[in-house]
């Protein structure tokens, strides 16, 4: 489950930082643009988590097939995708739903996020692996 090489350089860290800036701005920007009440579906968090899972699956598969993309990989995976998605906000939203008595909504939200999130990772990997006509010849 880990990076193959334990060592890293400052360029790699800078790439992750830059990706993190973009991921955070995109997630918070969407959350500010589409706020939700305690009894409503948190579309902003739901969307970024699924989009990030899909992209991470794709980039993860791409690295395995093209390991030479060394700096783009930490930028896109740990930087952009890791930061675009969030675990803490998901839990806070669930807590607020439970606290305000919206138990069915909390159950549906956590179930949909987990099932769709896991599926998105697999779809992302499958998209990268799909046959490319130009690569055949």
């Amino acid at each position, binding site marked *: *489950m*880990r*990076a193959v090489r*334990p060592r*890293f350089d400052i360029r790699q*860290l800078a790439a*992750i*930082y*830059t*990706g*993190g*800036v973009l*991921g*955070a*701005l995109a*997630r*918070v920007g969407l*959350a*500010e643009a589409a706020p939700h009440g305690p009894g409503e579906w948190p579309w902003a968090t739901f969307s970024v*988590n699924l989009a*990030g*899972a899909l*992209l*991470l*699956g794709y980039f*993860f598969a791409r690295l395995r097939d093209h390991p030479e993309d060394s700096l783009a990989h*930490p930028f896109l995976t*740990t*930087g952009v*995708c*890791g*930061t*675009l*998605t*969030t*675990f*803490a*906000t*998901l*839990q*806070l939203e*669930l*807590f607020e739903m439970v606290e305000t008595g919206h138990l069915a909504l909390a159950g549906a939200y*956590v179930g949909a*996020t*987990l099932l769709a*999130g*896991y599926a*998105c*990772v*697999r779809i992302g*990997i499958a998209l990268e692996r799909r046959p490319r006509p130009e690569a055949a010849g």
Partner: protein
Amino acid sequence: MSATGWALVGLLGGGAAAARFLIDAAFAQRIDHPFPFGILAINLTGTLALGLVAGAALSGEALVIVAGGGLGSFTTFSTWMLDSHRLNEAGHAHLVWLNVALSLLAGFAAIALGHWLADG
């Protein structure tokens, strides 16, 4: 939100991503096991901190900066899902369930604990 607020969200988001990477790498160097202990520790501590912040008096722009820019960025959903998939791929089906259930339940306990500590 003000321009300064957005700048802080970006700066904190980048720092949180770098911190997540360094902490996860430190775990990976010390623990030779397929279970993603590093991401679990990151997600649980970040969630506990968010519970504290959200339960405390912090609100408005300051809350968006710290919660969204910092702690929302530090914790990750996509890596949690990818790690689960990779455990499954490596034949550790029981660890997939452990990773999903433990993160979910302990994460909810962490947010509730943080909220309770800050409120009380």
